């Protein structure tokens, strides 16, 4: 059954040779298939991903993306519109709407009545950034963040808009930001995936695993969900009756048999399989250890508002820091329930309370640990919300519909200028009037911070070189430190 047993020694010799020669045949062959320009570029190599060199010196090594699913209202959180309060209950002027598309949820409404934010805005920090009273903690870190008030996007409904933010395209099928980063930059941690996802928030808009999927990139680049309850990673725990010791014994058996097979067949795929089992074994210890926040100091837990054993956005923020410490490339938190079509004042208060403290704590904590310099943190949703009310405006309540034409997000850390407020919207918070930033521009900027010229991170699929920024995207220089 093992006809080539006598060849085994030769194979092993060859493998030993390859192990020593990182500049050997493998590297040559790799180079010939890579984007020629990247290969020729002079920035320092030493990456583990598909990119053989970076275009710029990277400011950020990793990304923590706090994705606010459902789309928080920019008008009530980030973009003060004093005049809008006076205009409450008046029709949105056609000169402002300019015939732009609105959703089927308000297109049948007889009137589009403006509604100002019921919340006060205050100046925060040295930079004097104005934020809503709902974000007192974010107010404390404004000097470390750049607030973009002039974001805009194309889709007007959740699924296409989240897909667009995640992949640069409205229709499903393409790789997500994290997958691109994993593919391009690889992993710097031998025990953890390069792209990790944490979910929080009950109810709200549904999520799709494709929001962190790999699209047409190989599946090993897809985001791996780490969970706050049950197995933190699917099947990472040994079953009942099999403890760590037995698992190691069984694994040793698997590995010994696999090695015999490698010798017999000479197929290097088997070597990869063997290594994947070792990594799985390491994950069995490293993941539970990573997810256990109970040993964090009391101060730290209080800073975030995290409670061990009670899954929450706060816990996830703390976990994000722990993942950043472990050099995970792309950490994406998804927090649901920002879709406030009705009863906005109450609902947004709830969500702000659930997220403000921990988001700010993450920045503070990263900073005090010296991690903020090379970690890019992003906070925001898939679009903004309308200046007009969906449904009736009462003293205490109103709703806001989807609004892609302008909204706010903030960025912080590696490569980003702190204390900056970029862009302006009109008095209604309806259109961008200055420094507009398209989603593709945002992606280009994010990649820039990671040292990547966005047009260079490509993948050939069905005859075309695809990229995260599709066929557009400009780096927003004003945001860069």
């Amino acid at each position, binding site marked *: 059954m093992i006809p080539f047993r006598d060849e085994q020694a030769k194979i092993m010799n060859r493998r030993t040779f390859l192990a020593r020669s990182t500049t050997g045949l493998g590297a040559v062959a790799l180079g010939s298939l890579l984007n020629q320009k990247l290969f020729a570029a002079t920035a320092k190599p030493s990456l583990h991903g598909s990119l053989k060199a970076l275009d710029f010196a990277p400011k950020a090594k990793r990304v923590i993306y706090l994705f606010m699913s459902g789309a928080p209202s920019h008008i009530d959180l980030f973009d003060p519109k004093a005049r809008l309060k006076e205009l409450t209950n008046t029709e949105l002027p056609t000169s402002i709407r300019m015939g732009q598309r609105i959703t089927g949820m308000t297109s049948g409404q007889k009137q589009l009545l403006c509604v100002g934010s019921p919340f006060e805005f205050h100046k925060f920090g040295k930079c004097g950034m104005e934020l809503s009273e709902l974000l007192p903690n974010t107010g404390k870190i404004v000097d470390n963040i750049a607030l973009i008030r002039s974001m805009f996007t194309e889709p007007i409904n959740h699924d296409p808009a989240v897909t667009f933010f995640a992949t640069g395209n409205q229709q499903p099928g393409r790789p997500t930001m994290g997958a691109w980063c994993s593919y391009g930059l690889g992993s710097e941690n031998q025990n953890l995936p390069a792209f990790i996802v944490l979910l929080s928030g009950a109810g709200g808009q549904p999520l799709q695993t494709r929001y962190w999927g790999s699209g047409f990139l190989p599946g*090993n680049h897809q985001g791996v969900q780490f969970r706050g309850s049950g197995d933190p990673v699917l099947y990472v725990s040994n079953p009942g009756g099999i403890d760590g010791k037995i698992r190691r014994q069984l694994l040793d058996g698997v590995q010994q048999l696999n090695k015999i097979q490698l010798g017999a067949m000479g197929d290097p795929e088997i070597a990869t399989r063997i290594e994947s089992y070792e*990594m799985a074994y390491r994950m*069995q210890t490293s993941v539970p250890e990573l997810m256990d926040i109970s040993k964090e100091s009391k101060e730290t837990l209080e800073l975030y508002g995290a409670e061990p054993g009670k899954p929450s956005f706060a816990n996830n923020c703390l976990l994000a820091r722990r993942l950043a410490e472990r050099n995970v490339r792309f950490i994406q938190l998804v927090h649901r329930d920002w879709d406030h079509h009705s009863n906005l004042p109450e609902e947004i208060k709830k969500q702000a309370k659930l997220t403000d403290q921990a988001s700010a704590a993450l920045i503070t904590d990263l900073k005090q640990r010296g991690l903020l310099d090379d970690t890019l943190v992003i906070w925001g949703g898939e679009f903004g919300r309308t200046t007009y009310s969906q449904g009736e405006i009462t003293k205490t309540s109103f709703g806001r519909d989807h609004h892609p034409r302008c909204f706010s997000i903030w960025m912080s850390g590696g490569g980003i200028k702190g204390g900056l407020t970029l862009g302006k919207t009109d008095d209604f918070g309806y259109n961008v009037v200055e420094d507009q930033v398209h989603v593709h521009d945002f992606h280009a900027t994010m990649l820039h911070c990671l040292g990547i010229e966005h047009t260079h991170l490509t993948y050939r699929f069905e005859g*075309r070189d695809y990229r995260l920024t599709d066929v557009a995207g400009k780096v927003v220089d004003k945001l860069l430190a």
Partner: protein
Amino acid sequence: MAHRIAAKPLKPVLILLRKAFGGPALLLATAVVPLASRAGQSDVDFNRDIRPIFSENCYACHGPDQNKRKGGLRFDRKDEAFAELKSGNFAIVPKDLTRSKLIERITTKDEDERMPPLKTGKHLTAEQIDLLRRWISQGAQWKGHWAYLKPERSPLPPIKNKRWVRNTIDAFILARLEKQGLSPSREADKVTLIRRLSFDLTGLPPTLTEVEAFLADRSPSAYEALVDRLLASSAYGERMAEFWLDLARYADTNGYHIDNHRDMWKWREWVINAFNHNLPFDEFTIEQLAGDLLPNATLDQKVASGFNRNCMVNFEGGADPDEYSTKYVVDRVDTTANVWLGSTLGCAECHDHKYDPFTQKEFYQFYAFFNNIPEKGLDGSKVNPVPSIKVPSSADQARRDELTRAIADLDSKVTARLEEKNPTLEAGQAEWEQTLTRAVRNDWLVAEPADLASANGATLQKLDDQSVLASGKVPDTDVYTVSLKAAGEIAALRLEALTHDSLTAKSAARSDNGNFVLSGVEVEAERAPTAQPEADPEPAVFSPWRMLGPFVAQDNSSSFNRRFIEEPKVELDKSYADDTLRWTEKADWKDGEIIKLTGDLAATYLFRTVTVAAPRPMTLLLGSDDGIQVWLNGQKVLSSEVSRSVAADQERLVVQLKKGENKLLLKVNNTGGEYAFYFKALKEIPTKYVVPFASAVADYSQKDFNISAALDNNPKTGWAVDGYIETNRVDRQAIFIARQPFGFASGTILHVKLKFESDFKQHIIGRFRLALSTAASLTELGEVPANIQAVLFEAPEKRTAKRKAEVTKYYRSRFVPEILELDKQVAARREALQKLDDAIPQSMVMEEMATPRDTFLLIRGSFQNKGEKVTPDVPKWLPPLQSNGPTNRLALARWLVSADHPLTSRVTVNRLWQMLFGTGLVKTSNDFGSQGEWPSHPELLDWLACEFRDGSTESRAAAWDLKHMLKLMVMSATYRQSAVVTPRLLERDPYNRLLARGPRFRMDAEMVRDNALAVSGLLNRKIGGESVRPYQPPGLWEAVAFGGEFSSQTYVQSHGDDLYRRGLYVYWKRSLPYPSLNTFDAPNREICTAQRPRTTTPLQALVLMNDPAFLEAARGLAQRVIKEGGSRTDQRLIYAFRLTLAREPQKDELKVLQRIYNQQLENFRSDKNAAAELLKIGESPRPEGLDLSELAAWTAIGNILLNLDETITKG
């Protein structure tokens, strides 16, 4: 994504460590396998060597996209590439390098001049420049793109090692190997071959018996017999379906936003059966693309047409339906082009294709074929998006037929009774109709309106014809009040909505569009003031109460609703409930006192007569525990379904008594506990009361705005008349029929309120007139069902036969009880049929709209931006569409499988090759265009394509025979080679493109699962059926789902046999695919997937080690081993090993297992709890009487075996 990603052979182990996650996905070394000719070789081949250079570097500006073309020059067409340029120069002059400007432009040192321009990031290598030079020097021979030329069989190439060749495939493979100086590997041993074949052709491992039988069969035909057996097994169809389902993007949910359930598994069943019956691929194609359009399409063919309904369907709130109906059609184009043309036609959705000769217009011409489906843009909320058909099993169909027949029989009996000659009934009906019709038409007295008022400020003015015209302010809503004087007994009120020149577009309404919505009508009757006070009426005479009951009911609702007697008919002589209940007189009951009844969950009828000397209204005060219903003279005047304790005066009701005897029937029901009622009639005649209406009829009602809606007191609903349509701006009338004729002997004033309070602004009648009728026949009309009322209102001469029959049926059924009896029987069968139908699975299908939808080119692909109108057609660079019939999907499907088509056969055989060998002869199996890769064995590909398309006389195979093609491939010596990788082969041909060794690669996700279930003895071999839900960690769906009332939002695990079905049948939820399959690279099926990536990740190890499905399989394997594997440990180890891998273990392998078995036995002996814990996993029963420690140790061995690389590898 063609390449195999994670495990790259030439990478040292230390680097591999990092790759399992996020590592580089890189192609190694096509440099090692020169698929293209390189410098130094003599003949340059245009398609192989030159076109790829043009495509990659030049087409973006000098290619098919006319909007991006620079300098009028294009390199995708010979005539234009060789044409004289504006400058008078030529880009290419055959055999003349100096005059060929192309060479100058690609070699100049001037960066501004050099092509391709620096800013494109493209760059020609010295080697490519050399190829271009040599091509021109050799005469610049030009060929059409290879894949668009019709394939021809080339002569067999010359080869040396003729003995090795088993069939034509081998000749082509060997020729290339010999050219490269390589020789084939030896044939794999028989155990390897049966395992390889079993997985490839059935997706399942061979059983030990099968292995032994094959080893024992030493005849020369043993191998072929095995192949034939596997191809004939029903598992073959399942294995092939797995391959097809990715292409067809089959899933059990609608995808997109909320991602709820759809029924498509009947289509999946069709696919399995089609493969098992070896349906020729041309028919397979035609039925899936256009089965619905085949003449006399069978149910199966319609189901097959669901192929292109497998696309996702959205229904996100607020989304635009047009946006998504466009997406569905685009998906059909992408999928169809990918599956049959191996082409990226989808790239031309927004602009002309950059590399291939598709124009954007051609994209939309192709799109037009699929744009005639009567589907909806946002239709994903229910099962199923339309069009969808029921797909009954044959048993269901038989029952269905039986019921349908029975219904038809009964119906014809009814018809017979209706058509029966019966002069008495005919004459009676004629008179009855005439009376009613006359009343409706003629018996009206126009009343003079007084006290006109508008609630919201309109001006009301009486006109000469007694109509009322509104003018002045047009409020959003309004209520008109009008007073009328009347004498005698009033049966009905007529409202005419009249047009007027002063109103919008001469309509009857005040709104901008000419329509109105009458949301309510309320009439109060008041005694007209007279000079003298009216004399006290003669007192009414009440008979004593009679009681019938209690009737025992099943539940609260039936106590109220069930008709225990023929309500409202009272037959005082009749006995009920098996003669246990009769009407009994209750002479001692006193009005104005609470009277107790008996019974718990029950209903009781109470009856008395009321006699008056003159017609008069009477006020009744009622109380009840619990519900109460009241009929006066057979008319229901009160219905109150409540649960309460009795009290006086809980209901106050004014009834209109006729002169003489009136019949009053009460039904009081009890929902438990106390049971009582209360009754009192006031002596005084009420002076003012609200008139109850029985029904309303109109000469015209808008859909969903029927006249009856004006009576329901709900401002959201009302009567409208489509007045926004010009031809509908005519006079209309509505009749409101009182429950009882009403009115005061001394005269009545009617206070009429006409309400216009709907959400439709200003939808108010602008001119109206009121009239009254005293015709008693109108009261009768009020009792007639609405559909009959409407008939009588229509002109008899315009009445259809169906309507006539309805009227006859209504009339005759009062005199011919059999009609009612038959109707009851029909209703029961209809209900049974409905129940049956509800349980029959659905399947989405294609269907053509009667009037084809217009198709337009969508500028930049935007659904809001329509360009020129286009009609269905195929791209010009392919053979023309030939159709005698209409240019529709059927013509398209036939075109795809026509003999002249260059792509379908090539693309399909290449996919089969990819399935068996891991990589296609064309590696980019979804792109046969300019950007696709040159075939590793072009002549072989074409030969296979011809064999598939034409069939073969030599092997007596028909055209389009899939089993023949697979057999051909697996019979080859090429396929039968050992997969052992030698260092020399690894270096020369790391990806095995030259095929100097056999295929070896990790199995597809489904196969990994099926193998574990099969070797453990758990596998359920049922074919087809609904999808199943195996073990899955809790909370996964819920964490991402929208929830609410939508389907497939929470995971409900299957039990029993359903847990052990093949991966093919696992429920495929697009937003969260089954994790254990997904981890092994199964796609989410949102879009067509032509090639799955094949990764190796630690998450896969975690699944195999810890997923309960695999642990249960390990236990199953252990149980088998103990039961069947002999008594000695070594025997059992060998047995377990052979069950899993078919082969015998080597000594060193056995030693490892032996050692671990002993170790585990010791572990589990010292920790019996651990053994029990491990063995608890999985719902399959555990045989009694086994030693738990021993079983646990064997389960551990099973876990090891199921985790081996070899176990999940087809080699």
